[in-house]
């Protein structure tokens, strides 16, 4: 179970907003992470490690830069819950082991609400409500369980070696 405070974002949050182009040449993700959501005050002023980002539709749209989910993970974002995700961002987050959860009913969640993310649902402890989450396809579920494509392939190879 993941627990944290909700930080609310709107629809179509693009990767340029998460980490600007001019920061991508910095030597490490830790260096870039200082500039995560640099123009979003709800993040720069209110985020603390372990918080949960709650986005609208199409979270992470735009470029393929994996630095976007990487800086959020580096800052300690516990999970991202959104109505829907952009395709490349979704793959990248899974490959980094950053939990991405699809939940169509998040409109109800208010900023700073205390959330609990369980296997099949999200509990809004503040509002005493519960929302269902969309189950992942079997293959994607296995990728997530393995912690991303690299560990998934490693385990697969190990299993093949044992046979």
């Amino acid at each position, binding site marked *: 179970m993941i627990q944290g405070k909700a930080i609310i974002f709107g629809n*179509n949050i693009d990767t340029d907003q998460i980490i600007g182009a001019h920061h991508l*040449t910095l030597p490490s993700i830790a260096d870039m992470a200082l500039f995560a959501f640099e123009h979003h005050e709800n993040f720069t002023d209110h985020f603390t490690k372990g918080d949960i980002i709650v986005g609208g539709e199409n979270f992470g749209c*735009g470029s393929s*830069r994996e630095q976007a989910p990487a800086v959020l993970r580096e800052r300690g974002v516990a999970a991202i819950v959104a109505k829907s995700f952009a395709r490349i961002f979704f793959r990248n987050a899974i490959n980094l082991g950053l939990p991405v959860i699809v939940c169509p009913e998040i409109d109800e969640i208010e900023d700073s609400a205390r959330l609990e993310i369980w296997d099949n649902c999200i509990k809004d402890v503040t509002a005493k409500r519960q929302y269902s989450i969309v189950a992942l396809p079997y293959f994607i579920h296995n990728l997530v369980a393995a912690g991303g494509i690299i560990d998934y392939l490693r385990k697969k190879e190990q299993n093949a070696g044992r046979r």
Partner: protein
Amino acid sequence: MNAVEKILAAHCGETEVHPGMIVDVALDAVMANDATTCLAIDIFKDRIGADRIFDPAKVILIMDHYTPSSSIAAADSHNRMRAFAKDQGLHHVYDGLGVCHQLMMERHVAPGQLIIGADSHTCSYGALGALATGMGSTDVAVAWSRGRIWMKVPETIAITVTGKWPKGVFAKDLIMRIVGDLTARGATYKALYFRGPAIEALSIAERMTLANMVIEAGAKFAYIRPDEKTREYLGEMGRSDYNVVEDDEDSVFEKTLIYDVGDLQPQIAFPHSVDNVRDISAFEGTEIDEYFLGACTNGRYEDLEVAASILKGCKIAPGVRFLVTPASTEVYRRTIGSGLIEVFIDSGAMIGTPGCSACFGGSGGILGKGERLLTTANRNFRARVGSPESEIYLASPATVAASALAGHITDPRRIM
């Protein structure tokens, strides 16, 4: 199966694939650029623990987003790329010769291929009948080590385009209209298959514009069936060894959208979302500080030619800046040869080094507080090109040129 499904089937060794299937596909090329390569190198070495890439002829590295090196950090990351390329013995490394997608399409892409790139506009290659899509640095690092990657077979949406292209209306206007209609997420995970007489009528350059922007609706692939024009283009580029994949007669599409370009107006995408698209008439007269002609969307010879036809013998409005950046050195060379560059210089334009230039905000053309940019690029996200208090408007090369003369958003049909 349709051509998209047939190309995927051919690369995963299945006789038949269908939408929703997860397939492990062999790749014909893996491209990465200077915004994404260094992270992929870290992952390749540290997380995968890999030593050698799968094929030094198929892994292509391109420096284009921060070229010529625009900061010390950029110079250091370029040096890391060069060292990795040398260590791995890569055959194809391009250093400041143009936007990655333009170079890929000029020099590498062929119909029927399956390519991934660590850049979201990799979908452009569908203009030549290849399937190509953007992925992150981890997937690219995995592809470097295995030569393969997993994909979900997408549903295919057919977009049938009919009608005669009106003067002053271009592929850029059509794709912006389509993104506006579909919304920024309307085609997430789908393939967009463009067809019909108005698509066949387009030059290869304009087909590249169309395919380039499908990601702005969330799509995974663009696809346009190769024809005589494709064959001619590839022939000029020295490539003739490929097979064109045909749709089966019982091809299935998720749906078909129909557009008639006959009554299409020039379009503008307003800040700060690419699907915020309206007819130009709604916002004629909006004052603009900087104009940009270039990018993988519209930096090709044909784009520069249209703009030059409007600018010839005229000066840009007093007090505005106009930046022209050819998409590649090859485009640059042709532009010099035919005298287009002179037209731009005479009009008062700055000429940029081939590369991503003011599309990406990594190497010049940066906007200050309160400024507005009218650009042929593909994204108008907040703070993409400088200040979070600036605004970016997207348009065709003709609209950008006509507007640069007036100093405000201007319908190019008034001049053409």
